[in-house]
């Protein structure tokens, strides 16, 4: 439990990190550092995106699997580390 907190805190303290969300397989945000409405929006949208990305990768090659997803936009970068049951979503403002 404490290690989880410590990990998340460490991530949060990195340069440019705007927010962290931990989402479960059903799209329910478990842990978040952002406000509720934003969290819900991110959780729902990213969840669908990750499922789509994963199915794309596996369709191309069934042996393959999605390990990481980076979405870079004009304003920031959304990074998603997927797992079987949970996702870790981090929004960062990259250096520039």
């Amino acid at each position: 439990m404490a290690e989880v907190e410590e990990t998340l805190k460490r991530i949060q303290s990195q340069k440019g990190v705007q927010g962290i969300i931990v989402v479960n397989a059903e799209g329910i945000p478990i842990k978040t550092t952002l406000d509720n409405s934003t969290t819900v929006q991110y959780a729902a949208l990213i969840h669908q995106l990750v499922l789509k990305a994963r199915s794309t990768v596996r369709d191309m090659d069934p042996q393959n699997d999605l390990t990481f997803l980076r979405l870079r936009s004009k304003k920031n970068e959304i990074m998603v580390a997927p797992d079987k049951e949970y996702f870790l979503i981090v929004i960062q403002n990259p250096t520039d």
Partner: protein
Amino acid sequence: MEIVYVYTKKRSEFGRQCNFSDRPAELHVDILPDPSQMDNYIERNPCDNPTQCAQEMSEHEVNTERFQTETRGINHVEGGWPKDVNPQEMEQTIRYRKKVEKDENYVNTVLQLGSLMEHCIKQNTAIDIYQQYFEEEEVSEGAEEQPSAKTINVFRDPNEIKRTATGLSWHPDGAKKLAVAYSSLEFQRATKDMSFDSYIWDIENPDKPEMTLKPVSPLVCLEYNPKDSHILIGGCYNGQIAYWDTRKGSQPVEMSTIEHSHRDPVYKVIWLQSKTGTDYFSASTDGHVLWWDIRKMSEPTEKLILDPSKKGNLDNALGAISLEFETTMPTKFMVGTEQGQVVSCNRKAKTPAEKIVCTYSGHHGPIYALQRNPFFPKNFLTVADWTARIWSEEIKESSIMWTKYHMAYLTDGCWSPVRPAVFFTTRMDGTLDVWDLLFKQNDPTLSLKVCDESLYSLRLQDNGRFLVCGSQLGTTTLLEISPGLCTLQRNEKALATAMFERETKREKILEARHREMRLKERSRSEQGKEEETKDVDTEESSEDLVARAEKEFFEVVEFELKKREREEEKSQSKADKEKEISEEKEAED
């Protein structure tokens, strides 16, 4: 879930294999032919049997199901919560979350994902992986494309009797509006029903003008005040000048008094650079250049008579058709005349004689357009008769560069505000020419036929991208020029400077040569004069010759008259003598 179907079969029914064996043939039925049956049938001879040596094809229709698409937005509401948890209830959601956090799987996953994520975050902070190298080099050379111009909108004169669009002016802020002055410049061609109105158009709406301006006499020229975009001044056909405020309506706010205005149509008005922003000056073919202030339109603040002999004599004055004023040089201005000369004037001179500094002649007809190059104020462009010429201020004898003589009269021209070596001209056959002096000097770089009737006026927007040209039937066309012609090329300024300097130098050298030659001739003829003093008598001026001829004529006439008188006297005296003789004879009888 596996799909399972259970069926039963008797043990005796399966497990036994089939045994196949051979058997000899058996004849079951033998039907013999019966010739009597033939009587029921008639032989058909010949038989027509069509054949076609072609691919056999069949027609088949298929209609797929229509694929219906609909665009829908998704409203993300919290979902995915298990049945027993009510998402609205804070307590339940928090409880659920806490439960999940205690799950060992959760802890392990988060730790593992966390380390992976940290790696990527650190990557981000270390280097910008999407950094653009060589960004400037990627700017592609758009100059490879062909120069072109595209018509965007056409504004037609809404009146039935079409008038020429003689004056054009862009709105100073943002150039979303265009003021067009309509009048008929042909002598006595204006009919009674011709409307006097001029219009302000919104460039997005070509169907209807945005505002109408109603002067007492048709407007020949129209200008927006660059400092205050609501004020416009217009020069009328009858010589008066009117000014409008677009906030106050279609009627002019004030007009200049007739006594002090021009006596001929006002061909050009230009706003001056002043602190109050209310000064302007006007020119007309009556030989006057007048300065006015908007606040006091009853009489001009200053007058100038364009007399090249500098005596202020109105009879000698040249008619002004175009004016030029550059805000960077507020004391100087230039006037283009009907006689084909450009007069350069100094506003700050003390006496009227000094106001006219010098004249440049070289054109054969009225100078319709006169403009200094916005990048090189020492060089100016004149458009008149069948050519366009570029002059340098220092060289008064001739222009430094000129175009060839065209088939049609040139009516208007102007420099491009963004490229120093590009200028535009319009012609009477409805063609718009774009000249790029750095690309080609003999011919226009782009020649476009805008309309069938002649084009009369031309105006470029300040960004150099859009231009409007007005035609004889009042049709104003808005064109967009290709980016190659309105973006500054890399070395353009340097190349243009070099070109103008080169041409100026050439003219200077030619001028110097001419002067030398003239001097030589003069000195030679002076020497010759000392030897030929005797022959001076034979050289009579034409006037003397005329006087001599008159004298001779009258002498001959008088001689004839006298001769006739003498003859009359003679015959008269003869008659008298005969009379006397006859009287004597009678007396004797």
